[in-house]
């Protein structure tokens, strides 16, 4: 079984080729086969405990460990199962969602529209292949290839709707943040001593003997992971990435790719154990990101962007879990979060689709009766997200909170931040849920009813959001399957004081938003909104640029480059003069430094 699964990164290749060549009547239908196969095979491998290696030596001989090394074990099988499951749902969803995005009203001709749809599924196939390569990588060299490829496919998919304003700059932001991560990973790859590079043994004595030792290596890998998972100051690209189509936001920017950082940290947890200072930094940054993401989510006016900050916040929980030395808790939260966050995003897509592409929260409200399926799905997703006891999110978040409680290296106030974050989670979930589905109707035009392709993928995700927690309780199945790959796992205690308190806190935040007073809406504004739907139909509104420190840094470096360009006058004689002076200076310095006389230099010994 592991023999087949090791080639999982090629499963979507036939679909990619067929979509690219235009096989099949319906665009995208040819690509549907890859993800389910990956999901089923990964589940079987996970259940049977299959593991295996594939190694070709000397693939990149100039690197310390340049072998082409793939590995299937329980951890990679689990990740492949998550990627396979979420992408299966997203592929089906995209069949119904993408045609409207590239329709006539968005400025596409019939032919352009079909080409664009095929292109979309090619990109999706490329992403799934890259992600599979990333999680199957056995050493740093292969990991870097997958790591870079998911960044590229992320860019391609964010900028997919290239007729929409703002997608290119959003894609470039994502590319820039990913480049930071790629660069630090490359430095780590060069720094490890000869013969090292295997991801699971990075923390062993011979591998941390290089320059800088374990702390530097762990720091480089942490920065790479933080860039991919939008942690700390590198959060800025994820909210901007919402310019991509909603299925992409669900698959890449909520469930799988952004979780790759968490996966990498869990995979290399041995290294983190050898560098406790980096582990503590991970925990602090995770907590701060969890709080900051929650606060920023409350301030958003855009539906998807608010969900994106929620993703940033939840990834912060996972990083905190890893920092507190509980990689299993982080991986468990990754799995449950993948199901309920993908569910929330796909539901958001249904709502945006129904409102003819409107993404602003100020256009939403009172959609409970018209969109009962989306209403139920969003409620389930929100409750799992805030950790209502007995839903999946409660078990995984409780595990992280207990790991945080058991630590011994920081003042208690800081980890209580994680606890406060649960309240914020409840507040922003409630704000979205009640703001979108309850209250007065703000959009008075006719709704675009979702097709079955948009609704059916929500069902398995909703079931996952409800029951995935029972993988660990009452019987710890998942931690036993993962075994040594993520270190020792704490058992889930239920009911626990911590879990119940967190659940109550989250629900309090959620309920608080139900009584929030709605801002009064001018009747004229409502009427105007009802009229304008012809223009914005099927076309997601452009996102205003995401202003942050990255923009400031970009402007400064642009100015510096402009100042430096001034020395290039284009005057040939000046260039020659500078060259001559340079040569003269080099000659003088050489001659002054040598004890040999000029004639000896030229004539040599007789």
């Amino acid at each position, binding site marked *: 079984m592991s023999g087949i699964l090791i080639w999982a990164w090629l499963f979507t290749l036939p679909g990619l080729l067929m979509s690219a060549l235009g096989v099949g009547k319906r665009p995208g239908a040819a690509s549907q086969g890859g993800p389910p196969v990956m999901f089923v095979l990964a589940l079987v491998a996970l259940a049977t405990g299959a593991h295996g290696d594939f190694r070709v030596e000397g693939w990149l001989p100039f690197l310390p460990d340049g072998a082409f090394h793939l590995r299937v074990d329980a951890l990679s099988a689990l990740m492949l199962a998550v990627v396979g499951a979420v992408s299966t749902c997203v592929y089906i969803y995209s069949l119904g969602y993408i045609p409207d995005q590239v329709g006539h009203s968005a400025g596409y001709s019939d032919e352009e529209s079909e080409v664009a749809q095929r292109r979309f599924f090619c990109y999706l196939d490329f992403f799934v292949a890259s992600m599979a390569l990333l999680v199957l990588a056995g050493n740093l060299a292969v990991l870097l290839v997958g790591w870079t490829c998911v960044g590229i496919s992320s860019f391609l998919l964010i900028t997919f709707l290239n007729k929409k304003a703002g997608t290119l700059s959003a894609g470039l932001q994502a590319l820039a943040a990913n480049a930071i991560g790629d660069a630090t990973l490359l430095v780590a790859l060069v720094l490890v001593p000869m013969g090292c590079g295997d991801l699971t043994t990075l923390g062993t004595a011979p591998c941390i003997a290089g320059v800088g030792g374990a702390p530097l290596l762990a720091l480089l890998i942490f920065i790479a992971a933080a860039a991919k998972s939008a942690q700390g100051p590198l959060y800025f690209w994820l909210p901007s990435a919402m310019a991509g189509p909603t299925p992409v936001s669900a698959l890449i920017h909520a469930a799988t790719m952004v979780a790759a950082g968490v996966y990498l940290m869990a995979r290399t947890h041995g290294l983190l154990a050898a560098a406790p200072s980096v582990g503590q930094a991970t925990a602090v940054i995770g907590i701060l990101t969890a709080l900051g993401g929650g606060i920023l989510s409350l301030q958003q006016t855009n539906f998807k962007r608010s969900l994106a900050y929620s993703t940033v916040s939840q990834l912060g929980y996972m990083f905190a879990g890893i920092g507190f030395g509980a990689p299993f808790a982080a991986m468990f939260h990754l799995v449950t979060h993948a199901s309920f966050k993908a569910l929330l995003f796909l539901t958001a897509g249904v709502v945006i689709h129904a409102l003819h592409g409107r993404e602003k929260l100020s256009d939403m409200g009172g959609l409970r009766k018209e969109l009962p399926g989306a209403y139920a799905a969003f409620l389930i997703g929100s409750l799992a997200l805030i950790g209502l006891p007995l839903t999946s999110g409660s078990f995984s978040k409780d595990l992280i909170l207990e790991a945080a409680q058991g630590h011994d290296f920081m003042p208690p106030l800081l980890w209580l931040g994680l606890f406060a974050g649960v309240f914020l989670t409840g507040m922003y979930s409630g704000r979205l849920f009640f703001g979108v589905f309850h209250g007065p109707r703000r959009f008075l035009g006719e709704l675009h009813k979702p097709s079955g392709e948009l609704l059916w993928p929500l069902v398995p995700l909703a079931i996952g959001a409800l029951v995935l927690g029972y993988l660990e309780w009452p019987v710890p199945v998942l931690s036993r399957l993962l075994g040594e790959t993520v270190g020792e796992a704490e058992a889930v205690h239920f009911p626990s004081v911590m879990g119940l308190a967190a659940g109550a806190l989250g629900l309090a935040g959620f309920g608080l938003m139900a009584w929030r007073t709605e801002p009064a809406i001018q009747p004229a504004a409502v009427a105007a909104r009802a009229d304008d739907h012809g223009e914005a139909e099927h076309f997601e509104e452009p996102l205003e640029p995401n202003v942050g420190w990255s923009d400031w840094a970009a402007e400064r470096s642009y100015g510096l480059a402009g100042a430096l360009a001034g020395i*290039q*006058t*284009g*005057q*040939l*004689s000046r260039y*020659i*003069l500078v060259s*001559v002076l340079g040569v003269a200076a080099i000659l003088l310095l050489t001659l002054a430094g040598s004890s040999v006389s000029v004639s000896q230099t*030229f*004539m*040599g010994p007789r």
Partner: protein
Amino acid sequence: MNPEVLVLATSVVLLAIGVAGALIRRNPIAVLMSIELMLNGANLLLVLGARVRGNVDGQSAALIVLVLAAAEAVIGLGIALALFRDRDRVDIDEPAEVRG
């Protein structure tokens, strides 16, 4: 006077004239000629070194320089001709407008 010093001095003078010409002259043809002068000064030095040391390393290096100089002259003259066709007054600094 030692003949080798004489050749050395000639080589230095050739190089100096070439540098001065390349810096001062505005006509592209004159600049190209000055560059040729510099190359020849260097060539002379190479041949002199080969002669003093009694091997052929310097001579073969000088041959390579000759070939490169020929190639460079072809390209340089081509650019100069294109400039002459394009403009009335030709100044080596004038095409600064094409800088990025």
